[in-house]
């Protein structure tokens, strides 16, 4: 088989109890050197996929290929895959040095060479001089860095990370995101990263696989995922989203008319729902809608401000627009618009190309 993908899931099913499928007919290709994130709500099957790749779970059906070889029959310790665990899984009875030397020692690498590798790995996460410390003497962020260094010290071609930053506080998490991203860029290792935090996924990944209900909903680059979600779930899950439910009444070229439940009609971009009479949910990003647009836009409607929320760099407005009382709008605070007040009516405009007609919810 093969097909020249570094990692390949081929029609993989997984069931734990023989009654329910946790992963359903999963197909996923990952190229060498990529940073791919599996993103999804809990219970969506992303961690199960990672565990199958690592070898701690066996697929119920289908095959997983690593470097064009079927790996189902290879036990975890022979797969040569580095792994960072959710709670770091540092060996508490070993020093930082011993933790890092463990994968080298089991591979019978001579001591002086192992010392060099450990030193290199520690410098990668800027933790030189911590060799003699016990894991318990390190802060959460330091432990995480040791765990990352340990997963890389034996030069694996593939590293799996299972929500590695989940236990850290917000600031530390953000700086670790950049750190891991830079390590990935500098050594070119393939990383498969699991998280339920979309900001994390958008910051770090080359490509993101959005999981839901045991399936990959969409696999694409962060910007593609955000700008051009292929279904309602992805649109809802990634970033903020305004939706209108309705029915397509007319399709002409790359535009369609949607009659909303409130009776109004808007122009939208037919993506999933493409033919007349189809039910649809229309998705529009908050920042794509403008107040009193200067340029010509093909959707213009009036909305009433229900709530004004100050957010520092921008202000968030909740509008009652075309029957949607949860319509969110972002206004940059530099725009000096002093007439934003609760209860005021304003003009809202957006382009039909940003307004995607997706599957009904």
């Amino acid at each position, binding site marked *: 088989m093969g097909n020249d993908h570094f990692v390949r899931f081929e029609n993989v099913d997984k069931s734990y109890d023989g009654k329910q499928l946790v992963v359903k007919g999963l197909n996923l290709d990952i190229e060498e050197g990529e940073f791919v994130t599996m993103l999804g709500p809990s219970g969506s099957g992303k961690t199960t996929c990672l565990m199958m790749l690592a070898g701690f779970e066996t697929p119920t059906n289908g095959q997983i290929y690593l470097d064009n070889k079927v790996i189902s029959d290879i036990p*975890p*310790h022979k797969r040569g895959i580095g792994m960072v665990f959710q709670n770091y899984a*540092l060996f508490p009875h070993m020093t930082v040095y011993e933790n890092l030397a463990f*994968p080298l020692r*089991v591979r019978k690498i001579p001591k002086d060479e192992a010392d060099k590798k450990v030193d290199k790995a520690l410098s990668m996460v800027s933790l030189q001089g911590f060799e003699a410390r016990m894991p318990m003497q390190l802060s959460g962020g330091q432990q995480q860095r040791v765990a990352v260094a*340990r997963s890389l010290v*034996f030069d694996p071609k593939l590293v799996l990370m299972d929500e590695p930053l989940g236990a850290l506080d917000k600031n530390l998490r953000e700086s670790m995101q950049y750190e891991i991203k830079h390590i990935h860029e500098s050594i070119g290792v393939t990383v498969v990263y699991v998280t339920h935090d979309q900001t994390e996924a958008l910051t770090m990944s080359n490509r993101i696989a959005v999981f839901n209900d045991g399936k990959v909903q969409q696999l694409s680059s962060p910007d593609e995922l955000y700008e051009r979600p292929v279904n309602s779930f992805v649109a809802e899950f990634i970033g903020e989203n305004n939706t209108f439910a309705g029915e397509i009444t007319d399709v002409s070229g790359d535009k369609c008319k949607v009659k909303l439940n409130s009776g109004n009609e808007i122009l939208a971009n037919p993506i999933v729902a493409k033919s007349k009479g189809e039910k649809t949910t229309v998705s529009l990003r908050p920042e794509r809608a403008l107040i009193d647009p200067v340029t010509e836009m093909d959707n213009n409607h009036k909305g009433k401000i229900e709530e004004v929320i100050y957010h520092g760099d921008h202000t968030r407005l909740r509008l009652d627009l075309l029957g949607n009382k949860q319509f969110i709008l972002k206004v940059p605070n530099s725009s000096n618009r002093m007439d934003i007040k609760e209860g005021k009516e304003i003009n809202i405009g957006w382009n039909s190309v940003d307004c995607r007609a997706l599957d009904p919810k």
Partner: protein
Amino acid sequence: MSREQILSSDGIPLEQSLKKAERKNKLKAVLLVAPLFLFILIIYVFPIGDMLFRSVDDRMITKMLPKTFQAMENWDGQELPDEPVYKAIYEDLKYLKENKTYGKIIARLNYEKSGFSSLIKKTVRKLNKIEEGNYKEQFIKIHKRWGQPEYLVALKNAAPNWSYAKYLKGVDMRFDQDRSIVQVEEDRRIYKILWMRTINVAFWVTLFCFILAYPISHLLATLPMKYSNLLMICVLLPFWTSLLVRTSSWMVLLQQQGPINDLIVWIGLAADDNRPELMYNVIGTFVAMTQILLPFMVLPLYSVMKTISPSLMRAGKSLGGTPLVSFVKIYFPLTIPGIGAGCLLVFILAIGYYITPALVGGASGSLISNTIAYHMKSSLDWAFASALGTMLLVGVLAIYWVYNKLVGIDNIKLG
């Protein structure tokens, strides 16, 4: 910078008002602890103190022969003593005879040197015939042993108020007549064998418990809740059954016509007329004690294993360690605190075990505690029983000390 005294708002030094504020809490704490403290004092400290005291107490004979020992004080123990010593013996024995309490000293003196029994009995019987004056001659006439210095030396040796002779007896040693320590005769050396057997049984029972408990504890710690609860009940069930009942059921199982022997015969491992003896020997002690002490090994092991995250073993494997290497280098070292606690607990319990060896051990399977019980109940040599008990206590404390040096008591985890 000089340290100034900080005053609270009403002008009292802060330190003082803090103490005042905390006094009530301290008093409450003391009162809460007091019942347990008293209980420990009454149930443990006093009896153990009394036991220690009894094991070295030798004042009884001193009190019963006060004049004799006073008169003997200046005697060098070479030649026969002079008249005053015999006079003192006469007066002491006369007093004892009048009060009918001389029986007590016979056993004690006979222990010092055999032959005293008949000597004292005969002397007391003929005490009335002794006339005043020239006691030495009359004594030797009653019994020729009064003319042999070794008996009088033995008598003098019994004089000190305190004696560690019982401890010597506990390790098959004794004082000979010139107060030097020698081993007892070969055929009377029974306590060393007993000590060795006790330690041996405790060691093997600990080892068997460990071998059996480790996998069970691992299973308990890793199984899903609903199975592990069931298994836990199975482990604890014998815990809730009376010790006597459990031991008795082992007697039913292990007896020569019992089910285990039936099974052995049925399989063909032994002939029907040549059934192996599984009870009233060391085998019975091993089997029953291992089963009874097993929970004491399982519980500390389980509580330690429960805290070991399963991701550690996964991490070991993902880093390239085979399951065996990951177990030896990662899992096993992390369970050492539990192993230490379990082994210490089982060993200490096993070394002083009483009921089980008494019931299924027979002669070759009885342990030091059975001997202590024998001396408490049957031979009534409480001093010796106390000495053996003290030696056992010191032994256990020594094990504890060694363990602390090797592993560190802080590393023990009982849960």
